[in-house]
């Protein structure tokens, strides 16, 4: 009888142990060695899915492609992932075609359906308190004036859209500074500024080019990418500097050929002394001028650009590793085959490349 009781006790303890593990995994809000690494967001191919997550543990130098599938019993991502990042202990992925905001724990385990109600063509998000703000292009964009685009406000406690802020012009990148939500308008030469206490109070900062993404410096001021456009006459391209205290564009740092890709085209290093931007330039090859991709570094002190990496094709994103200061370039020449993560040190010396998923465009780090 005692023996049976012992066995029962052991089984009960084992059951509790495993169920506890499951519970922890399902509610993984804390970062540790199991979540550590760089996560590459591979967009896939529009309409044909193929999106994936690559986990790169740069300390252990291990790469796990198809990480989402691996963490979800083989289930693949059912959307093209436009952007993803971690916020308040959860990962949020902006899924297109099918349109939804996918939420997972820090182990990329998805336990519930994505948020699709009120979400149409989500692009980017930024968090503030218990909410995230998601730029959306609407169900049927007109690709001209983009009159039906908006910002969706999601309550992260209930995972429901609680507010829809109409914002024509195709909002893409977002940033929050000084109590205001800044939205880069990809179809207008403007940045929208929304008062977070009064969503109807929207002002606009005129820019010489259409805009795509922001980075924020230590003073809470913003750099925004200024792009050329099919539909707009553009006066200048490069980066703009926005003083968020005065909500004005104070400077424009011109650069031709700045990438209009939807990905991490601008990224600062850790002390914000250098900003890396992706831009194409015309290069003469065998007597013909060809457009080739490259990365330029912008010295924040001297306000000047210099070529960092040249002659690279298929660039989707640039990121800086916060631990090592290494520069990560995401490249992919077509949407039907694997891309690469190219690693460079600060002086532009190539270190290595790593195979990732299709059309990598973003990466984020969990330390």
């Amino acid at each position, binding site marked *: 009888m005692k023996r049976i009781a012992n066995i029962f006790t052991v089984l009960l303890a084992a059951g509790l142990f495993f169920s506890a593990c499951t519970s922890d995994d399902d509610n993984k809000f804390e970062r540790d060695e199991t979540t550590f690494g760089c996560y590459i967001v591979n967009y896939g191919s529009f309409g*044909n899915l193929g999106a994936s997550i690559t986990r790169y543990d740069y300390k252990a130098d291990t790469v796990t492609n198809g990480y989402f599938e691996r963490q979800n019993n083989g289930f693949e991502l059912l959307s093209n992932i436009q952007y993803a990042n971690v916020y308040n202990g959860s990962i949020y992925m902006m899924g297109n075609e099918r349109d939804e905001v996918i939420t997972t724990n820090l182990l990329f385990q998805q336990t519930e359906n994505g948020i699709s109600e009120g979400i149409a063509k989500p692009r980017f998000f930024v968090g503030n308190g218990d909410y995230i703000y998601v730029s959306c292009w609407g169900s049927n964009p007109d690709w001209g004036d983009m009159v039906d685009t908006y910002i969706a406000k999601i309550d992260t406690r209930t995972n429901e859209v609680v507010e829809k802020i109409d914002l024509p012009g195709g909002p893409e990148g977002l940033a929050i500074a000084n109590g205001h939500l800044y939205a880069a308008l990809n179809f207008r030469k403007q940045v929208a500024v929304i008062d977070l206490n009064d969503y109807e109070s929207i002002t606009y900062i005129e820019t010489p080019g259409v805009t795509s993404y922001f980075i924020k410096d230590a003073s809470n001021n913003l750099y925004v990418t200024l792009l050329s456009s099919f539909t707009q006459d553009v006066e200048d391209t490069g980066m703009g500097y926005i003083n968020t205290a005065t909500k004005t564009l104070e400077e424009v740092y011109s650069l031709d*050929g700045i990438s209009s890709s939807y990905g991490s085209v601008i990224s600062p290093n850790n002390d914000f002394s250098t900003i890396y931007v992706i831009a*194409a330039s015309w290069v003469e090859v065998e007597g013909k001028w060809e457009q080739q991709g*490259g990365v330029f570094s912008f010295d924040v002190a001297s306000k000047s650009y210099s070529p960092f990496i040249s002659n690279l094709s298929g660039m989707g994103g640039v990121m800086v590793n916060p631990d090592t200061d290494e520069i990560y370039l995401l490249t992919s020449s077509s949407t*039907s085959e694997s891309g690469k993560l190219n690693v460079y040190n600060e002086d532009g010396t190539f270190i290595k490349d790593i195979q990732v998923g299709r059309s990598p465009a973003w990466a984020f780090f969990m330390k």
Partner: protein
Amino acid sequence: MSLSMRHLYYLFCLFITFPLIAGESDFVIDSVFLEEVTTYSSYRRFQPGAKIDRIPAAQMQIAQSGNLEEVFSRFTPVYIKGNAGGLSTIRFRGTAPDHTAINFGGININSHTLGHSNMTKIPVFLFDRIDVQYGSSSAINGSGAIGGAIYLEQNHTWTKGVRNYRIYSNGSYGEHFYGEKLYLGNGVWESVTKFYNYENRNRFSFKNPYHNNRFTDPTPIKDRQNGAEVHNRGVLQQFNYLLAPGETLKSSFWYEESWHQVQPNMPSNITYESTAELDNKNFRSWVEYENNSSEIQYKAGAGYVRDRQIYNNINDQLVATERLVTDALVSYSYAPNQELRFGGRYKYIVPDVHAYSRDNIRYEQRAHLFLSWFYEPIKNLKTTINLRQPYVTGFNAPFAPSFMAEYAMNTSEALRTTFNSGVSRSYRIPTLNDRFWGTQGNPNLKSEVGINIEGGVTMLYQPGADYYRLRVNAFYMDVDNWIEWRNFGQWEARNIQKVQSKGMEIQLHAGIEMQSFSLEGGLNYTYNPVKRIKDITASHVNDQQLMYSPLHMGNSFLQMKWREFSCFADLGYTGERYYDNDGNTLPSHVMANSGLSYRLPFNQHSLILMAQVKNLLNEDYQNERYYAMPGRTYHISISFDLNFTQL
């Protein structure tokens, strides 16, 4: 259907369809020979070694309410990539969709902006014959005829009297087709009017594994397709005039409106709210004067084409082109066994595309000079040399020669063996999009160029009224400067790679007649390895088959007739296909279709009733990854042929 039942059905189909399809019936074989006599300038006459098949009349009848996508996927071993009715593109011998010329009169109807045609937007009903050429034919058909060519043909019967043909067809999931043909004439002039209306709500059901509860229960759910509605309609008007024996004036005016919703993929179907729409309007016309009454024969034609596409009702997203086409040729039979043909063609193209800068292109002119020589040095040995030199404004276009030969020998009274061979150079001028789209178009592109070599043997055994035909064809083709859009800092078209395609095609075809019973069937099989052998990114060259190009394809067809009853079945096998370049594949699938028809004759008139079951085995398959296709569907049609013509 259980697995065992399915196997039984496969065996049944293989058994009954053993001698199968894709060539012509022996009636058609005869008619082809006749046409070679009467149509001196036909593409057959100057390509004796080429593989050109005609879609048999019986199959044209079966697919009357369908489109080219249905005909090719059911009756030929040519792969069509597509979804459930909105968009489908053809891939001859592993080549790209813009490597197939589609000829209507003297016009290649492929879009000059996109480079290809949507196969679901070309209705079978408007054409009397469809010929299919495998392999390159740029020396005859010009730019784009690298992988194959399709000829949409009309019969010119010089109607005496009135004839009216109408068909109503209904299918599962909201599919409706109505078509009408009206022939009027007095034996000298002829008016032929054909129009049709096709609607398909496409609300078919399918198994969707990408549902919302997949985390708790991964079993696929039964789902219903949203946002895949199709509405096509068109009219084709011909006016033909027989000026004198051998001297004709023919004209064709084809207006087509096609609209479809952009089908959501299976994951999106779950959360469907709305989808985009594509609206196309195409007008194609061709007028041709032909004089074959003397040893010097000549022909001159002119056409006007307008293609217009609007995306999602946004008028600013206009993609349109207009073109004027003229050509003229002279043919001279200066000896009983020799004929020389030469001519020229001119095209004036005006694009109106929202993403083109007027500074880069306002119009484009293209001209071609061509010369063909037919020579039969000994009896039954036919040879031809075709030469074509295109000219394009501001662009270097390549020279396209071809040499072809065919030798036929009567091995016995009933057995005829024919050997064919050919070598040809092909090319494709980059599309307007490739060169002028926004800031990404690349005006520095070179033409794609290819070499096609093929040879084969055909054995035709005709004991009495029956016939058996076996054809084996081997081919080798490479295409250099293959254009692809890739990301070079921005997405841009460039001459990227060299692709090699080779393989073997086997056709077996038979027809048997026994008093009031007849049997006709055939079998097609294609083995086609196609790979990149050069790429500007060296790592892209690997041993993988090109995407959406099956290594193995085959199909079979059988039709049995007893008096006015007919039953038919066809079975198609599509091998595994890669859907990306990382080694992921779509599984192979088998499609079976079958049906019955009954013809009720009354004097010269007739009424035809037909019932068909498509995808009889309810196969769950995809032709493009993540896009659902219909399962088993049922179709019935009734057609009337009221014939008041004088025979």
